């Protein structure tokens, strides 16, 4: 039985959408995974010495123990928001001759190996190794490390028990703040007290078995709960969200383009991935803070120009690069309707320009960093509005990857192809280069003027460019319908 499930897991892993991706993305995602692991490893190894340096009179293990409660509750909150029991994919097994107990064990055990549980190990194991190397008692460290692993697993199962419960989340949050405040004002130090318990486990490792007891109890509770709920109308049901309809009749003043604008607004707001893109574009506003405050970039004006493009360009870049793949699911339908393709494109253009303008207005506080920075942001905004919006529309005609809007948001690379990598050159490097050349050889202000001038020229040529872009889309229509029709 177990071998059956293992075989399925194997196939699921290697046949998953992530593996079907092009080699470039695989490498990129591989690097990202390695980066995360490296970060945790680094923290695990470095924590001991770091703590030793900052708190020379204290035992690093004791310091870590004193803060473990925060780590556990923080982990729980993080999981509450992100992790869910992978129940949906057991649906095909329900009618097969497999004992329901086995199905439940399978789901629960599978969750034990989730990303959330593995990540912590990359901290605790190296930390323990360092402890042993530094002469801590081996049985004590092993007991402590075992307890940590058991606690990670316990948190895993505790999360599934409270996950459906909104008040539990509130309680967690209040607890976290409560612990902090009581500790801060020295009323009562629960994290510290609990930390003493962890110290005790180090001295007497046999007590790490308490973690095992906790884990078994939580597992049993999970088992009981899930066992009684694996019915299609209970745990194994897809949640249907109620539609929220907002009156968008204000868009009507845009005339012919209005139906498409309405559609695009709904597209963005009602799908996870597009919503993430939308909200992320506000985070990009803060991109400048990193660059403008770092001394390393103070004198590197092209780098600052680069950052300035991002400040207002978050939406245009992230949304624009996947036009028209956002509409890939219903592209056939659009192509059988009677409208000028131009309207469809104009609506996307309008959205990009409107969002860039909004982000520009929100970037006014950057005036604090001086007029030069602000001029750069202004030039960047003009470039984003004039050149980048049009260029992204054109680049979009090369998109041949379907995007399934029902799939999740963060870290979803569906729809990414060679186009996405190639467009970075003209979008970002071209204005940087332009700025650098004029700044270096002509003089300071000419850099801004030229970047802004390219933007304004593009804007003036918009009609001409749109004609050209429209023709390209119409020419590539069949290839796009074909590509968007394929499941990715």
């Amino acid at each position, binding site marked *: 039985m177990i071998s059956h499930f293992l075989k399925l897991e194997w196939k699921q892993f290697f046949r998953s959408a992530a593996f079907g991706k092009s080699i470039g993305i695989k490498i990129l995602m591989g690097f990202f995974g390695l980066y995360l692991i490296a970060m945790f490893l680094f923290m695990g190894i470095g924590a001991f010495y770091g703590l030793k340096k900052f708190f020379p009179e204290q035992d690093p293990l004791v310091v870590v123990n004193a803060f473990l409660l925060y780590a556990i509750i923080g982990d729980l909150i993080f999981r509450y928001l992100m992790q869910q029991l992978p129940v949906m994919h057991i649906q095909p097994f329900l009618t097969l001759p497999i004992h329901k107990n086995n199905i439940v064990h399978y789901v629960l055990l599978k969750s034990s190996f989730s990303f959330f549980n593995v990540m912590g190990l990359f901290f605790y194991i190296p930390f323990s190794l360092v402890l042993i190397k530094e002469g801590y008692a081996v049985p004590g460290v092993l007991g402590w490390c075992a307890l940590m692993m058991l606690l990670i697993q316990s948190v895993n199962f505790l999360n599934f028990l409270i996950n459906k419960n909104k008040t539990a989340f509130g309680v967690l949050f209040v607890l976290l703040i409560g612990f902090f405040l009581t500790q801060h004002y020295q009323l009562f130090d629960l994290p510290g007290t609990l930390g003493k318990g962890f110290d005790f486990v180090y001295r007497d490792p046999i007590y790490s078995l308490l973690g095992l007891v906790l884990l078994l109890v939580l597992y049993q509770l999970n088992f009981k709960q899930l066992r009684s709920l694996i019915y299609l109308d209970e745990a194994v049901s897809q949640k*249907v969200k109620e539609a929220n*309809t907002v009156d968008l009749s204000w868009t009507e003043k845009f005339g012919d383009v209005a139906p498409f604008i309405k*559609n695009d607004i709904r597209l963005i707001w*009602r799908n996870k991935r597009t919503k993430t893109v939308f909200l992320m574009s506000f985070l990009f506003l803060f991109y400048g803070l990193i660059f403008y405050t770092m001394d390393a970039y103070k004198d590197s004006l092209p780098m600052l120009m680069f950052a300035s493009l991002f400040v207002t360009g978050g939406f245009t870049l992230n949304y624009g690069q996947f036009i028209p793949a956002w509409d890939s699911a219903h*592209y*056939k339908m659009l192509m059988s309707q*009677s409208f000028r393709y131009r309207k469809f494109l104009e609506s996307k253009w309008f959205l990009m320009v409107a969002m860039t303008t909004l982000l520009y207005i929100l970037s006014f506080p950057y005036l604090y960093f001086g007029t030069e920075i602000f001029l750069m942001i202004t030039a960047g905004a003009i470039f984003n509005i004039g050149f980048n919006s049009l260029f992204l529309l054109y680049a979009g005609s090369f998109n041949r990857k379907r995007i399934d809007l029902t799939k999740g948001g963060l870290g979803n690379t569906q729809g990414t192809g060679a186009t996405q990598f190639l467009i970075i050159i003209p979008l970002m490097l071209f204005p940087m280069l332009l700025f650098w050349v004029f700044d270096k050889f002509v003089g300071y202000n000419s850099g801004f003027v030229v970047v802004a001038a390219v933007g304004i020229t593009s804007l003036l040529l918009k009609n001409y460019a749109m004609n050209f872009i429209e023709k390209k889309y119409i020419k590539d229509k*069949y290839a796009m319908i074909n590509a968007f029709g394929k499941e990715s």
Partner: protein
Amino acid sequence: MITIDNISKKYGKAVVLNVETITIPKGQSFGLVGNNGAGKTTLFNILLDLIRPTTGKITNNNVEVNTSEDWKNFTGSFIDESFLIGYLTPEEYFEFVGDLRGMNKADVTAFIAKFDVFFNDEIIGKKKYLRDLSKGNQKKAGIVAALMGAPQVVVLDEPFANLDPTTQIRLKKILKELTDNKEITLLVSSHDLSHVTEVCDRIVVLDKGIVVKDIETSTATLQELESYFSV
């Protein structure tokens, strides 16, 4: 109204469609039957200029479909769920299609009201997105959207599939009334032989991309089709 002239479609060496000539006069209700892979959907997709034929051309009301887009103004179609926009509610979807077909909000509301019985209270005012509706209800919405804006040609691929019995009967009635006054040309494909024979004046049988039968519907047609398909 519609002329199919030497249409063929090849993928590599495989010929999936090879139709010499079919002329569909105005007002005819035309049924297309055939087993899986017979080329029904391919033919409809070529008619809607969604894929390009390898050879030949289709004209829809004297408009050659892959050179001009004017046919879109008088042709309504529903092929599959990819014709729906999943993140819209049915109301919003009708409004969107209505906008594209030159209907204002009042027109759309009045038009949709005519289908109250057909919708059976499962489409309008449910606060659900199209992607969350059942297959049958999605189909209902798609079919009605295809009828919006007074089209002269209506193309429906397997309209009866996934519908409940009551709705199938109601749909048959709607389709028959549609072609009553011989103004609207209707093209449907179906796997249900009795439904097509009931709705259509003419039935063409495709097999592996080739027309094997072209029948004016009569009382004997159902029998003839059943004996053809029972191999």
